[in-house]
Structure formats: C-alpha cells, structure tokens
C-alpha cells in the first residue's frame, strides 16, 4: 500500500560530487601509497649499491710511491748466477729483499719510510729482480704500493705526519695512482694494502664445484623419482614434506649438521672446500628438487603418452624424452640455487671456514676461505683501510651473483617452451 517513493540519486548534486571526489582522492592516495612502498625498496637497493660502489671503487685502486733502491750499496747479497736457473725463486726468498726495500724507503722518506710502503711492496721488487737480474748492478726506481695509512693520508685522513709526507711527495711527483691488480690476484693478508681476493675466490669456486657435483645429480634424480615414478604412499609424502621443510630450514642449522656429522663423525678436514661444499649441497638440493619437479610437471603428458605408445619403457620415456625437455627449467633452478649457495656465510662459519688463510687453496682438502666469509672477516677488522677492501670484495661478489642470475634469466628466455 505504502509504496515508498525513492527519488533517483541525484548524481550531479553537491553532496554526491563531493562523495565521489572523496572516493577518488582516497583511490589516488592508495595508489600513491603503493608506489611509495615499492619506491622505498628500489631506493634502498640503489642506495645500497651506491654505498658499496662509492666505498669499494677505491679498493680496486692503489697509491704508488716512487722508491729508488741502490742495489750495489745495499745489504742485499744475491749471486746473479743463481738467478738464472731453477733456484731463482728460492734464492730470492732467502735473500733479505724486504729489509733492503725497507732500508731504501727509510733512507728516502725518513724514519716513517718503512711504514709508508705496503707490506707486500718487496714482493714486486723481488719479481722485478727475477725478471731482470741486471737491476742488481745499478740504482733502480720502483713504483711500489703505498701502505694503508699513507693511502688514507691521500684523502686527508690519518696522522698529520703522514698527511704532511703525502703532500710533500705529491708535489715532488713521487706519488701516482693505478689499478690494483694485486687485489684480484692475491690472497688474504694482515695489511689492507696487501690483501687480495683470489684466495677467497678460488675457495668459492672449489666449494661451488663440490656443491654442484653433489647437489645437481642428487636433486635431479630425486625430482625425477618424485614426479614420475613415486607411488602415492606414506613414504612419498614423508619425502615430500621433508624436502619442502628443508628448503625453509635456516641455513645455520645446516652448518650445525655439517659440524656434527662431517667434522665430528666423519673427521673430514676443517675449513676445507670439501666440507663446505657438502654442507651447501645439502642446502641446495631441496631447491633443485623443487625447481626440477616444476620443470618436469610443465612437460605435457602427451609427450609421455606418445613415447609409451611407440613402445618405450617407463625409464626410457623419462630419460629420452621428458628429462631433455625439462632440462632448461632444471638448469635455471640449479643456477639460482647455486647463486644462493655462493652468497651463503653462516653455515661455513660453523664448519670453521673463518681462519686466516694467506695462500689460495690448491685442492678441495686444503683450508680455504670463501668470498662471503672473507667479506665478513674483513668487515670485522679495525683498520680503516679494510672498509674499501670489504666493499670492493662485495662488488666482486655482487657482479658474480648478478652474472649467474642473468645467465639463469637468459636460459629461461631462450630455451623455455610454453606448451
């Protein structure tokens, strides 16, 4: 009876336009908020990269000092005849080149002279003598790497005497800058101007080799079993649950496992790439299994049916047809897992890979360091000179990781097929 007459909404009314305006304003605010959120992440990333780059670029450079060494009047006693043959290295090692260079620096720059050149400076002189023994008969000029305090003095930091010495030498043309090749070819040292990352880098390579050799076959085979053959029963569920869980277990727990089983029970060598690689392999395997299963799942059943139809056995179906088709996806997952393992630090600290290692490892059983652990160790050093070396090492690590991830993306784009 009482039919409620409702007037149609007056969309152009003052109240309505205000309401719509308010809703649109809130829409814009929300969108801006989203943009701000993602911007914060991107800005942080850029800031992080910029900090590392600006700190680290100096780590690749070295300050060099012109030092003249007067060999005939020095205390260095080397028989030039001995420098010809095989015992050249040994002769140079037993001669006191270090003392001679230090004395030359003292004669030239005064009492703080020996502190102005790097600990590793004499090695360059030694190499120069090996290359040209006739140097021993004359006075020769060398451009030697400066020590870390002198290097810092170049930027106005450090002790006043050093800054003073730097300015005086700079005016006389006795200082130059150059690319620090030693940083890429040397190993760890106590003096920041003498450190290099090759030792840690080689350790990382060896460790990754062990990890790859163990995790890849095991991961692929496990993925094949679970995806293609495993019967649906309690055992399979248990395997699946433990793989999913292992992928999320904190990495340091794997370190505890490595410490207890590989070092405690199996008595494998401490700090060795072998143990590090095995520990990281256990960590990487679940990642490869999960990536492998997804890649195998993506291969359409028609491929399997066709192969079975022409008489292939179940093993032949997988190994001749399905696995080759899934391989690009598996490789992508493997590279991503390896990149994660390459950046991992905590489990390697647990198995003792934190010692001071002054020589690059020559095999998987030698004590070694790896890049991330080297970064951690250098970041703990008090000496100011280590800051730029740490950042420089971080740049090397990041470049390597990005190259690996780039390779993974390239593989994915080039070989992945959409069915």
């Amino acid at each position, binding site marked *: 009876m009482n039919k409620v007459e409702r007037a149609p909404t007056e969309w152009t009314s003052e109240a309505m336009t205000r309401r719509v305006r308010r809703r649109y304003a809130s829409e814009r605010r929300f969108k801006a908020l989203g943009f701000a959120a993602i911007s914060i992440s991107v800005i942080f990333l850029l800031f992080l990269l910029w900090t590392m780059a600006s700190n680290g670029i100096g780590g690749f450079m070295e300050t060099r000092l012109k030092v003249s060494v007067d060999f005939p009047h020095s205390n260095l006693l080397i028989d030039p005849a001995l420098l010809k043959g095989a015992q050249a290295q040994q002769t140079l090692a037993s001669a006191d080149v270090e003392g001679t260079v230090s004395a030359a620096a003292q004669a030239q720059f005064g009492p703080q002279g020996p502190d102005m050149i790097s600990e590793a400076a004499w090695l360059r002189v030694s190499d120069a003598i090996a290359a040209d023994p006739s140097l021993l008969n004359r006075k020769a000029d060398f451009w030697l790497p400066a020590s870390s305090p002198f290097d810092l003095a170049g930027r106005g930091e450090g002790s006043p005497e050093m800054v003073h010495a730097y300015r005086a030498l700079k005016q006389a043309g006795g200082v130059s800058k150059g690319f620090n090749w030693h940083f890429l070819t040397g190993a760890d040292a106590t003096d920041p101007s003498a450190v290099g990352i090759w030792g840690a880098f080689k350790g990382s390579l060896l460790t990754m080799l062990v990890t790859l050799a163990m995790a890849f076959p095991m991961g692929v085979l496990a993925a094949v079993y679970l995806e293609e053959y495993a019967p649906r029963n309690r055992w399979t569920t248990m395997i699946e649950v433990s793989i999913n869980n292992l992928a999320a277990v904190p990495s340091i727990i794997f370190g505890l496992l490595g410490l207890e089983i590989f070092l405690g029970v199996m008595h494998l060598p401490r700090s060795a790439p072998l143990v590090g690689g095995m520990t990281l392999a256990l960590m990487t*395997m679940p990642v490869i299994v999960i990536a492998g299963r997804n890649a195998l799942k993506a291969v359409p059943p028609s491929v399997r049916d066709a192969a079975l139809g022409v008489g292939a056995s179940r093993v032949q179906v997988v190994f001749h047809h399905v696995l080759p088709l899934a391989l690009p996806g598996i490789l992508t997952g493997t590279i991503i897992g390896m990149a994660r393992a390459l950046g991992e630090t905590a489990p390697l600290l647990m198995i003792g890979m934190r010692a001071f290692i002054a020589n690059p490892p020559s095999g998987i059983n030698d004590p070694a360091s790896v890049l991330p652990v080297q970064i951690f160790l250098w970041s703990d050093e008090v000496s100011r000179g280590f800051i730029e070396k740490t950042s420089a090492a971080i740049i090397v690590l990041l470049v390597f990781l990005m190259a690996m991830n780039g390779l993974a993306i390239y593989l994915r784009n080039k070989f992945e097929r959409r069915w």
Partner: protein
Amino acid sequence: MSPLLLLGLVLCLGLVAWLSARARALAFAAGPTMASRPHSVPGYHGWYVALWAIVPALIFFSIWQLIEPTLVTNAVLHGPISAQLPADAMERASVLEEARALSAHEIEGAFNPLSNTLAPAFEAAGHRYALFGTALTLLLCFAGGAFAFVRLRPNLRARTKVERLVMFILLIASLMAILTTVGIVFSLLFDAIRFFRLISPFDFLFGLEWSPQVAIRADQVGSSGAFGAVPVFWGTIFIGAIIAMIVAVPLGLMSAIYLTQYAHPQARAWLKPSLEILAGVPTVVYGYFAALTVAPAVRSLGLTLHVPASSESALAAGLVMGIMIIPFVSSMADDSLAAVPQAMRDGSLAVGATTSETIRKVLVPAALPGIIGGVMLAISRAIGETMIVVMAAGLAANLTANPFASVTTVTAQIVGLLTGEQEFDNVKTLAAFALGLVLFVITFLLNVIALNVVRKYREAYE
C-alpha cells in the same frame, strides 16, 4: 697406485666392458624370425655388463678407502716396533698420526723422534694394503664383468635389469632428503640432550639471565654460567618478528598490490627485477651495510631523541632485515592475490567500487589466509637469519623493549658460541646445539603451519 688412477682404470674397464658386450649383442641382432630377436637393444647389453664391472668394484673401493687407514694402523700396532709406543692413549694417538703423516709425505719432519722410527713401518704397511686393495678392486671389476658377459644371450632381459638399478638409484637420491632431516634432528638432539643433562631444560627455557661467557672465565662448567635463554628468545622475536615485520609486511603487501593492480606493464618490467635483485643480495652484504651505514645513523637518531642508544641496536638489524624480507612477503602476497577468483574482483568493480575499494574490501580479505601464511614463512626466515644480526645486533643479551639498545638473537649466539675454541664436551658448545634445536623446532612448526594454511586456502578457491 693412487686412488684417483685406480678409479680411472675401473671406469676405463667399464668402457671396455660396454664396448665388447655391445659388440657381442650386435651379433645377436641378425635373427631371422620374430621369436629369435633379442629382448633388448645392444646398448642395454653393454650397460648390463659395464654396470656389473663397475658397481661392485666401486662399492668395494669406497668401503676400502674408509677402512684402509684403520687396517694400516692396526698392522703397525701388531708389529714389533709398537712396544716402544707410549702407554698414554692421547700421546700414542698423536705419535701414530705424526708417523702416518710422515709416511704419506704430508709433513717434512716429525716433532716426536719416535714417529721417525715408526714411519717406515707405516710406509711398508701402507704399501702392502694399498696393493691388496688395488688388486681386489681390479679382481672384482674383472669378475663382475666376466660374470655378466657369459650371461649375454638374445633372450637376456638386459633392459629390465639395467632399469631396475636406475630405479634403485632414483629411490636412493630421493631418500637423501629424509636422511638429511634425520641427520639434522639427531645431530641437534644428541648434543642438546647432553646440554640438558648439565643445565635443566626448565632453567634454559625460562631463565632470565644469559651469560655463557662467565662460566668459561671462572672455569666452573655449568655451576655459575647463566644459561637462561629468555633474553635470547626475546631478542630474536623483537628483531625478527616485531621490528622486521613492521617494516616488511606493509611495504611488501603494498608493493605486491601496486605491482599486480596498478603498475603499467613497462614499469613492472623494471620494478619486479629490482625486487628480485633485492632478494638475491647475500645476507653478509646486508649485514655489512647495517653495521657500516644504518647502525651509526640509528645511534645518532637515538641520541637526538635522548634515548640510551648503543652502536649495535635492535632497530638497525631489524630495519635491514625487514627490507631484506620485503621481496619475500611481496611474492607471497602476489601469489595469494592472484589466487583470488577474477569473478570476485569483477563483481566488486561492476557495482561501482573503485580499484582501491575493491582491493581493500574484497581482494585482501579474500586473500588474507594466504597472506598470513606468507607472513608466517617470512617470520620463520627472519628468525633464522644469521649474518645481519651477527654483524649489526651484537652478543649482549638484554631483556629490553628499547629498540635503540643492543639485543642478541638465537642465531647470533650460536655463531658466538661456536666460533673460537672448539671442544665438543664444552657446555658452551653444547648450549649452541640446544639453541639450534629450539630454532629448528620453532621454524619447523612455523613452516608446517604456514604451508598448510596456504594450501588449504588455495584449495578453497579451486
């Protein structure tokens, strides 16, 4: 013969076996009738013989590698020279080890003169056993190969047999995952139980004071060192579950919403990879950044606010950890939002809701279980994160809610307790395993619950 050379030789013999068996099987192939055609293609016959040649030899070889040192030592101990050995077990072991290293030319000279006299005995025994092992390995290789070779017949089911071994290997590979889990549980439990024999679990889980270093200095194991882990747990929760999540959850969720709902495809092509790069930066880099740049800034902020501030603060570690987790939260939220049926979104837009109203009132509530699961996984990641807290949060166990103060976490304590002197029966070392056990159990529970939540919710919409 060096082990590597022997290994190569065995593999070469395997190749020879493969070639000869395949050649033999190729001769079968020319049968006139269907019934006389061989069961398997020649390659499988090759594999059948090659595997028989290689596998038993390799199994023996690896077992031999493990037991050979013990056999050599035993042989030396039974020799006449062993009478001179010191009676003390420790000393004896060190002399034996030195003599062994000397005989293997791992070291140049010996510290103990007795080692020099023992070294020749070691060398002789080593040679004898190495020769024995090599001979037996090669014998097994030949015997296996011959055993299989004489069985080659057209009707031999070579393929079936080879494939059975392949399946067995596949099964073993997948069992490695269970083995790893069992290994983790046992290695943690074993030492944790030894720890709980010294310190009662009740004191450990509910004690309010944590100072493992004191016990070591006073050299009174277990009696005066304080192992009450509540401050450590609190620090872990404070950094990983509170500060980091305050940063990561809103930023990650909003990033995901912006990327999936608003961003222009071209912008997305740039923004998404940068989030992926953020996820790929190693934690040690974050830790260095936190210690070098963020921590001093946080400290000066705290000092301007007149709050007691430490140079290693919970806030610095938590902030950086939160940023590290953003990509993870974002990708989990992305998945959950994508799983909401398109019809719900379309319906909301059709009745006139703006995009943001649709997101806030329809999409996010519908995706909430998935998002919560993702946040739980993120928390499990944050509390297991090690390097950031080791480098930026420090080892001082404070029970405080001041974000500018220094707190410590389970992972930082594990690293602190286990690096340095390593003695396996030290209570300090054992405490690290007890902490590891707690960490493992908590992350395990979080993961299982979160994965179940995510799965159940996905099923609800399918």
